[in-house]
């Protein structure tokens, strides 16, 4: 039973630099929450404040209903997995996992039972006698997780645990972490800069930037309904195109005036929503996957446009094509079968039901 609540958390360093600027977050019991954002956004600091490794400048953190501001890490009943694993190099895998229990004076038999159980879950039983030096990156990662699991804490904290692994192993361990969470079902706070990790692992994603929370929500929600330009650009890869445009009224419908005299019709379903912004300069946001080649099965709510490719990147399952529109980079995801060549006009369609409009002054999605 452990929900985690952050209330108006501020972290200021000497000299007045604020790493975290008063955030509020409620994490439910058993929930897997991922804090994601670029480096320096305050996500790690937030995690470390939950762990008790950083002091809180102001605000309150409660774990399982108890305010833990003044409680040292060892009494918070949390476990943490570090980016560099932080395994004790002089101890065997077994001792690494047993250390926390030993310090808490658990009986030997209980320690043994828990370590073996965790080793079984993580499939590291044959490694128990080894020293961390003799392990591969993925194995170290498992031991670090094992050290957290044996403690059976109220909360798991993960600080960029996959950053030190190569791409292939990262995907594997990602699945592993998700599996472990499904098995032990402990409340988890996970920090990463990788939005793919965030999307795949999280029950809810918390997008942070410059020490504030931009948006909190389930992965699909963030993808389909980003609240700010930052979230829109951060979630999804390649990231969303932002094209300066002007919203105009044209005989009952709305339309967008883009550079190069490109005019796109706004779907009727959005008319009411965008009506108050007619005549303003806006940013037209559309994901590359919603800017596709001109052979859709469902022509509903699409508009055609023609652009000249600048760079073409075949990826195998798709082809990324990059254009330039008055100094704005625009990319599209095409079927690899579509013939495209640099400089030759290419007809595309924009799936306007997936469009976003952003107010360039407030960076809010309209």
């Amino acid at each position, binding site marked *: 039973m452990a929900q985690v609540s952050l*209330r108006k958390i501020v972290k200021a360093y000497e000299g007045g630099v604020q790493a975290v600027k008063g955030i509020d977050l409620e994490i439910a019991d058993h929930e897997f929450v991922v804090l994601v954002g670029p480096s320096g956004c305050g996500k790690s600091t937030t995690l470390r404040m939950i762990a008790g490794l950083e002091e809180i400048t102001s605000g309150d953190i409660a774990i399982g209903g108890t*305010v833990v*501001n*003044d*409680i040292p890490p060892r009494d918070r009943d949390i476990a943490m997995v570090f980016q560099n694993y932080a395994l004790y190099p002089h101890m065997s895998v077994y001792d690494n996992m047993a250390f926390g229990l030993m310090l808490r004076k658990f009986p030997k038999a209980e320690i043994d039972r828990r370590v073996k159980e965790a080793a079984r879950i993580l499939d590291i039983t044959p490694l128990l006698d080894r020293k961390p030096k003799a392990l591969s990156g993925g194995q170290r990662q498992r031991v670090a997780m094992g050290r957290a699991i044996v403690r059976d804490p109220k909360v798991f904290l993960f600080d960029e645990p996959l950053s030190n692994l190569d791409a292939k192993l990262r995907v594997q361990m990602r699945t592993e972490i998700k599996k472990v969470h499904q098995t032990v079902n402990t409340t988890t706070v996970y920090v990463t800069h990788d939005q793919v990790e965030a999307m795949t692992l999280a029950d809810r994603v918390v997008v942070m930037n410059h020490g504030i929370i931009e948006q909190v929500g389930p992965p699909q929600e963030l993808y389909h309904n980003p609240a700010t330009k930052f979230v829109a650009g951060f979630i999804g890869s390649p990231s969303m195109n932002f094209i300066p445009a002007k919203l105009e009224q044209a005989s009952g419908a709305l339309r967008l005036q883009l550079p190069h005299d490109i005019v796109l019709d706004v779907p009727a379903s959005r008319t009411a929503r965008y009506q108050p912004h007619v005549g303003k300069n806006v940013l037209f946001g559309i994901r590359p996957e919603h800017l596709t080649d001109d052979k859709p099965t469902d022509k509903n709510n699409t508009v055609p446009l023609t652009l000249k490719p600048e760079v073409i990147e075949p990826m195998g399952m798709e082809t990324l094509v990059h254009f330039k529109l008055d100094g704005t980079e625009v990319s599209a995801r095409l079927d690899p079968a579509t013939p495209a060549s640099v400089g030759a006009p290419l007809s595309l369609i924009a799936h306007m039901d997936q469009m976003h409009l952003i107010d360039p002054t407030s960076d809010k999605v309209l």
Partner: protein
Amino acid sequence: MASATSTIGADQARVGSLQRFARRRSSIAFLMALPLLIVVGGLIAYPAAFGIYLSMLNRRMTAFVGFANYEILFESDTFWDVVFQSCFFAITAVLLKALIGFWLAHMLHGIPDKGQRKWRGMLLVPWVIPPALSTLGWWWMFDPSYSSINWLLSIISVPEIPWLGQPWWARISIIIVNVWIGAPFFMIMYLAALKSVPEQLYEAAAIDGATGWQRLRYVTIPMMANIISITVLFSLIVTFANYDIVRVLTNGGPRDLTHVFASYAFQVGILAGNIPRGAAVSLFMMPVLAICAFFVLRGVTRRNKEQM
């Protein structure tokens, strides 16, 4: 811990306990560092200050005489001999140690790795033997009637050298022994530095067309500049303040011409019993040491920054 259940908004109470927590940690830390503080303060800083005070007393240490001890020293020929000998000894010996050390480190770096350990092991022996004891061996080798060095030199028809009997030869002897003891230290330091120069730099330089000498000049030496200066300055301090070799080899003789600051201070302060004047002699080392120490510290700090 009792404040764990404190309600939200009890700001003042919390700030208090946070501070208490931080203060407790630093008082534990302070306690742990206290023995060090006692050693540094009581046995290094205090004696240094006490030495300055001592040097301003009269011989019986009953009256304060200001700079009289220093003035007497300035007027003494022996003192100026000591100044000359200390500087000549330190500069010559350190230069030779640095050059020989660098050369040997470079040679050692050039041979296959598996042989390096063995050679390094042999070449560091002079540094490992307590200097007072190995100097005793040298003294025996310099012995006027039984000199085994002269015997070797006589094979190539070099006339007998009065190693410790004649002032200049005595000075050279002291330098030889100091270089013999200290060169291995330079070698080890430089070898460690050479090993830390990334191999790719040499490969890049080789592809850019650098010859062996140019690689040394433009890659090795700049990369090692910091460690070279740290080692040289450090050795300058140690050599300048050396006592063991002079004490065992010549004890200042012949005719007080091979005294360095340390041995002269010992002679005046402990043996002749004029403690204040002895303290004054040793304090003359201070300015040189302070300048060296400043640059060593700067070098080490800079090096630490680079490594971060």
